[in-house]
């Protein structure tokens, strides 16, 4: 009987990715000078597991690749070899490649076999104590690697015969088609152009030297030149391939040109491989995220949490059968027992709810663990010295939040790295320590989780930001903005103060998407900065996305829910607390602070409100996005937990309203979005209606 092993593939991949994560963090922590024996053991075991698993399931390429890594690690742990920083670097980049191989094997993406081959060669070179190996000569491919003859690109010399264009063929079109296959470097040779008097515009005297960086078969390229085969001289040579390619050379120029690809590219290939692997990794990370974000996926849960859950459900069942029994032959004398039973039921339901939510909570370390590697790679790439400090990695967050916050966080950290932290020389000149610090912190605050990204870099320059915003037409030139308001500008779409767009940031599309993603999770983003000293980005997210503790209030006949987290206190306004500014803006003085007053009925257009005078109603003092204000309502009804029902499912987002909920009587109540209400209050009435009906 043959067992179908493919059902175990999923588990194998999950465990292998985890193992890779363990290896990666282990390698990053490792200091070549002082290698911890146990750490190396952990690494070795992880590699060994991956090798064994992949061999069992028939992924022989992966097994062979991992075997080399395992041998290397084995030698280190047996102290037959010193771990040099070079071998450390090669191991790190091998992990990227291995990740790509696993991802491709799990069916999610194509694999660059040439990259794998190169990486494997490097690994073997290190293993055999050769610090660098010429990439071209080493033709003996390792056993299991099947894709030897795959190339990463082609070098073409294309010289149309003078009459090529007369047959209706356009070299430009051909070159464009080539460019469609991948990255194309084009150099034109105009040496054969005749003088102006002899020039016939219908003849082609140009010759092109093309480098195509694409892993395509030669047949594909031949296809493109099919029509002009007879009408040009074409030389195609792979780059920098192992295969002495088919060179259809019938021209003396060929030998000269064909020499260039043979230059050994070892140092370049090193960083190219790293960068390539880094890109692969970013791409696969994103794909992984997309996959898990769409709902599929599994979650690892602490057994303790499941046990708790089972206990609570048990008690719930007991209470429920007790109530059933009571209900069967109910007499009024049993009313007390009924009430007791119901309140126990309420308690158990509450516990059950908490337990279940706990299950979906995972420590944020799963996201934070990405960052040491990112910071390590980027600081090397940018030649800056950066230290990353992580605090509060054990803070637990809902799984959905983890899935969606990862990418925005990565973007923000990259920003800090790229723009915030200065180059070492600049830092020393500014009297700062050479090594910049980026601190990633997570903690619980009330019912929110707060994530902070702090750097001690150059901070934000409000003037420069304002100038850029005016330049890009995001604000008009007369605008005066406070420092804080200037900082907020960087979240606008299309904004970037970077002069050159680097690979990481500066494309001007990042931060507004980041803010939108965070808002979609029900959170907020704020910026703090001190020019020259550093900046901090503070993200606040609700702990759970489904349930909210709210205060229900009434305005006229309508009931609204204000999230308890936003409420500081509720007061009855006394006449001496009321002040007017410029005859229009009402404020309420509370403990020395003047709070702007928002008449909720005005903002929400409620008819039939009862309180016209501030002193008639109740003022609910709330805080949102760092600002405070007082919201005037008719009555406070009660506090309750409400289930959040998003409006966007069937309708759309409404300014000032975060979601809806269903009250005990089956009717719908709207949950207020405090920062949104404050924004609406600042807008003029006409703008408000326009904004809302857009």
């Amino acid at each position, binding site marked *: 009987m043959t067992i179908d092993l493919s059902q175990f593939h999923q588990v194998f991949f999950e465990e292998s990715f985890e193992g890779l994560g363990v290896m990666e963090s282990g390698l990053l922590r490792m200091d070549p000078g002082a290698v911890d024996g146990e750490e190396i053991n952990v690494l070795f075991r992880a590699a060994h597991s991956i090798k064994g698993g992949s061999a069992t399931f028939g992924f022989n390429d992966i097994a062979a690749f991992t075997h080399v890594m395992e041998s290397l690690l084995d030698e280190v742990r047996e102290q037959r070899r010193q771990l040099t920083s070079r071998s450390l670097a090669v191991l790190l980049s091998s992990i990227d490649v291995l990740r790509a191989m696993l991802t491709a094997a799990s069916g999610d993406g194509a694999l660059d076999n040439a990259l794998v081959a190169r990486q494997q060669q490097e690994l073997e070179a290190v293993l055999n104590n050769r610090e660098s190996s010429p990439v071209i000569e080493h033709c003996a491919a390792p056993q299991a690697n099947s894709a030897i003859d795959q190339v990463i690109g082609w070098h073409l010399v294309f010289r149309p015969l003078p009459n090529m264009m007369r047959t209706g063929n356009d070299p430009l079109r051909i070159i464009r088609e080539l460019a469609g296959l991948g990255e194309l470097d084009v150099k034109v040779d105009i040496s054969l152009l005749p003088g102006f008097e002899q020039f016939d515009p219908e003849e082609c005297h140009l010759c092109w030297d093309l480098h195509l960086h694409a892993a395509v078969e030669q047949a594909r390229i031949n296809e493109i030149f099919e029509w002009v085969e007879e009408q040009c001289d074409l030389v195609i040579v792979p780059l920098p391939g192992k295969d002495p390619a088919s060179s259809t050379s019938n021209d003396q120029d060929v030998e000269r040109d064909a020499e260039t690809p043979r230059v050994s590219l070892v140092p370049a290939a090193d960083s190219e491989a790293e960068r390539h692997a880094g890109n692969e990794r970013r791409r696969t990370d994103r794909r992984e995220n997309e996959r898990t974000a769409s709902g599929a996926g599994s979650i690892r849960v602490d057994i303790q949490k499941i046990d708790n859950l089972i206990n609570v459900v048990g008690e719930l069942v007991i209470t429920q059968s007790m109530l059933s029994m009571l209900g069967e032959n109910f007499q009024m004398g049993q009313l007390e027992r009924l009430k007791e039973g119901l309140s126990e039921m309420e308690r158990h339901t509450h516990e059950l709810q908490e337990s279940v939510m706990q299950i979906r909570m995972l420590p944020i370390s799963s996201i934070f663990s990405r960052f040491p590697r990112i910071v390590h790679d980027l600081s090397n790439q940018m030649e800056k010295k950066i230290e990353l400090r992580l605090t509060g990695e054990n803070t637990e967050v809902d799984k959905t939040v983890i899935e969606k916050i990862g990418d925005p966080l990565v973007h923000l950290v990259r920003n800090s790295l790229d723009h915030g932290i200065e180059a070492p020389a600049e830092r020393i000149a500014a009297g700062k320590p050479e090594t910049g610090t980026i601190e990633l912190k997570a903690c619980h605050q009330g019912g929110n989780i707060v994530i902070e990204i702090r750097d001690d870099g150059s901070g934000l320059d409000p003037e420069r930001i304002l100038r850029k915003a005016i330049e890009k037409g995001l604000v008009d030139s007369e605008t005066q903005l406070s420092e804080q308001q200037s900082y907020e500008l960087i979240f606008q779409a299309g904004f970037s103060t970077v002069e050159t767009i680097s690979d990481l940031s500066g494309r001007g599309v990042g931060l507004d998407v980041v803010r939108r993603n965070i808002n979609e999770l029900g959170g907020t983003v704020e910026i703090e900065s001190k020019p020259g000293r550093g900046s901090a980005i503070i993200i606040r997210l609700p702990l759970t996305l489904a349930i909210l503790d709210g205060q229900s209030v009434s305005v006229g006949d309508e009931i609204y829910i204000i999230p308890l987290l936003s409420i500081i206190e509720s007061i009855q306004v006394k006449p001496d607390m009321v002040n007017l500014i410029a005859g229009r803006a009402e404020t309420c003085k509370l403990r020395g602070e003047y709070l702007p007053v928002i008449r909720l009925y005005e903002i929400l257009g409620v008819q039939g409100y009862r309180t016209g005078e501030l002193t008639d109603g109740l003022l609910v003092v709330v805080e949102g996005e760092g600002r405070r204000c007082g919201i005037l309502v008719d009555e406070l009804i009660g506090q309750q937990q409400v289930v959040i029902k998003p409006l966007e499912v069937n*309708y*759309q987002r409404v300014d000032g309203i975060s979601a809806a909920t269903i009250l005990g009587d089956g*009717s*719908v109540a709207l949950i207020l979005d405090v920062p949104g209400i404050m924004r609406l209050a600042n807008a003029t009435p006409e703008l408000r209606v326009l904004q809302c009906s857009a």
Partner: protein
Amino acid sequence: MSAVSSSESALPYADIGEYMAFALGAEEYAVDILRVQEIRGWEAVTRIPNSPSYVKGVLNLRGTIIPVFDLRQRLGMPFRAYEKETAVIILTILDGEKRRSIGVAVDRVSSVLSSARKHIQTTPNFGAQLNADFIDGLVTANGKLVTLLKVDRLGCFSSEGSGIESELA
């Protein structure tokens, strides 16, 4: 009150469309019956602040929050107070790949109509008089004109819903 004549009932199934007909005042309208989820009587809805006038509010449909539009106002007609015959038709809207539900309040529900597709007349061009985006076609039933409506366009929030003026200033 079906519009199917004896010769039509002999047509293959695919050539006949079935529609849910209802009335707005004296005018008859209809929508594809497959898009009708259910029909409810009018009940109080929760108002949504600062929304277009045709959005009456939201209601709780067995745990889901569904917006309710006044169809007269959505088509640019003046509002008429709701009476006991006023009904809310819950429709399924296809928005790209997403399925959404909305409710539309109508004056009176009529009945189910069947009509051969070939009898459906394409919408005449009214030019600037009427924004005919919502209209899927015209058909005659029992001597009366029935306007077929495009359900997906009704559920489109971004356009200002007036049938008569084509755009709000």
